[in-house]
Every structure is written in structure tokens, then in C-alpha cells.
């Protein structure tokens, strides 16, 4: 009777780091032993989780050129967001800034439209920065 697999055996079998004869011997035992088969299944789930973690934890650094582009773009986005959120800003100023294309469309006669004097409705305030 061959002995049960240890945690290390199972982890190495799953990782594929064992020599073929050793891997075959462990598998031969596990095929006749539900306990060890369950241990291999457990290790396989752990391995799957590790794989996803490895994929998701990647924080890719910006390439040098991307950094040069990202900084001005971030500043521009912040400026546009400020422009759109200022309640005292006349609509014409926003249009001059070239940002009206990103504003949500307001149907004619809608009482909630932005008239340049009244503060924009909450929904508009919430949506405007995200439409940039």
C-alpha cells in the first residue's frame, strides 16, 4: 500500500515540477484514494487562484512617453471638470472652452436645463465629470 500524498507532494504534482516517474507514482496512488484525489483537487483550486492573483496583481508602469502625455491630460481633465461644476459659470464660457459637446442633451422646455444662472441639477453635476 503506497502512502498518502503530503501537501508538498500534491503541490509539486500540481505545479508540474516532479520527474515523470515520481508524478506517475503519485497519480497512481491518488486514483485509488479519494482522500488524496481530493487533496489534488484542493491544490488545483489553490493553483488556479494563484494564477488569477498573478494576472490581476500586475501594475504595469507607464511607458516614458505615456507619462509625458498623461500629466497634461490629467491637468486638462481636472480643469474641464472644475469648469463644468462651477454653478456661477455662464454657459457661453463653457462653450468657449470647447466642452459643450460633452454635456448631456437637455430636451427643449425641460425646466431643469442649465440656464447659466440657476445651479445645475444634481444629476448634471454628478454626470458632467464622467462625460469628459
Amino acid at each position, binding site marked *: *500500500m503506497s502512502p*498518502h500524498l503530503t*501537501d508538498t507532494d500534491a*503541490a509539486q504534482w*500540481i*505545479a*508540474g*515540477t516532479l520527474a515523470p516517474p515520481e508524478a506517475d507514482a503519485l*497519480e497512481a496512488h*491518488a*486514483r*485509488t*484514494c*479519494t*482522500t488524496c*484525489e*481530493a*487533496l*489534488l*483537487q*484542493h491544490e*488545483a*483550486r*489553490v*493553483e*488556479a*487562484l*494563484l*494564477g*488569477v*492573483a*498573478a*494576472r*490581476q*496583481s*500586475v*501594475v504595469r508602469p507607464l511607458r516614458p512617453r505615456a507619462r509625458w502625455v498623461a500629466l497634461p491630460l490629467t491637468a486638462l481633465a481636472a480643469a474641464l471638470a472644475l469648469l463644468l461644476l462651477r454653478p456661477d459659470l455662464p454657459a457661453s464660457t463653457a462653450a468657449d472652452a470647447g466642452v459643450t459637446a460633452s454635456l448631456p442633451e437637455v430636451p427643449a422646455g425641460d425646466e431643469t436645463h442649465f440656464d447659466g444662472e440657476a445651479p445645475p441639477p444634481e444629476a448634471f453635476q454628478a454626470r458632467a465629470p464622467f462625460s469628459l
Partner: protein
Amino acid sequence: MSRARAGDRSAWGVLVERHTHRVRVALLADGLGLDDSRELAQATWVLLWEKQLRGELERLELPGLAIAQARFLAMDLRRRRARELDRDDEELAPSPAPRVEAAQTLQRLEAALRERPALQQRIFRLAVDEQRPHAEIAHAVGLSLQRVRQILWEVRRALRATLDEPKPPRSAALSPREDPS
């Protein structure tokens, strides 16, 4: 890979040898047994080879394509067995609770991996995410094969320490296999 796509049988054999274990591990992780994983992995390669011959394979991205195909076959197998046992397919569907648990576990793992030195992270990703052979990784990072394996083992051990998933209970004696019928 391109030779295999062109129908080179020996190149195809190399791919099968290289990726079969990974396919089987994916099936084991889904709860299939060793015998089923072996049979389904073989069936998967046969199916892919036939698709290749019919010109139906636009891309040959491995092991992802083989694992997806094998999972499809596994689902089919489960359905057939469920019908044999007169069980509803819904009984086989995973409940949302383990998914939430898995998401939390993943967050812990990601955090633990980020704490490792950059070189260890790189080696681990090359091995586990990109599935590169250890010898290739050793060459890429300029370390010995033995050192790469040692590092992989250390990272795995550290990450596993963050897992508190309960292990299957151990029994003192060999357990007889359950009869599916």
C-alpha cells in the same frame, strides 16, 4: 505554434505534451476526478486537432483554448451524469457565496504577491500566468534553473500562507473510491 497550425503533427504533439498537465489541473480545480481529467484532456486534443484539420481554428492560443474546450466537455459530462442520476442541472450550478469568498481570497493573494520582491513577482508571473517553462524563465532572468524553482517554491509558500481555505479532511487509511452509481 505556427507549425502546429499548419498541420504539422509532430509540432502538435509537442504542444499536447506541454499543455496537457495544465488542462488537467484546470479540470481538477473545477472538481473533476483524475480519471475524468485525463479522458477529457485527451478528448479535448482530439477535438482541437479535428477542428484544425477542418480549418476551423482561427487562433491557437494555448493553454487557454484547450482549457476552455475541456471545460465545455466537462460541463457536458456533468449534464449527462446529472440526467443519469435524475438531478436538476441547477443543483450543479455553483452558489454565489463561494464566488464572494474567492474574490476576497484573491484580494489577499494579490496583496501578498505585491509584497514580494520585484524579481520574485516577475518569476512567479512568468511561471503561473504566462505558463513559461522554468528553463526559459531562468534564461530570461539570468538565474539558474534550480534558483528559479526555489524562488517559485518560496513565493507559493508565502502566498499559500495567506489562504485559510479549509483543506479536505485526512483519513488514516486509504479510502475506497465512491461508486458514482
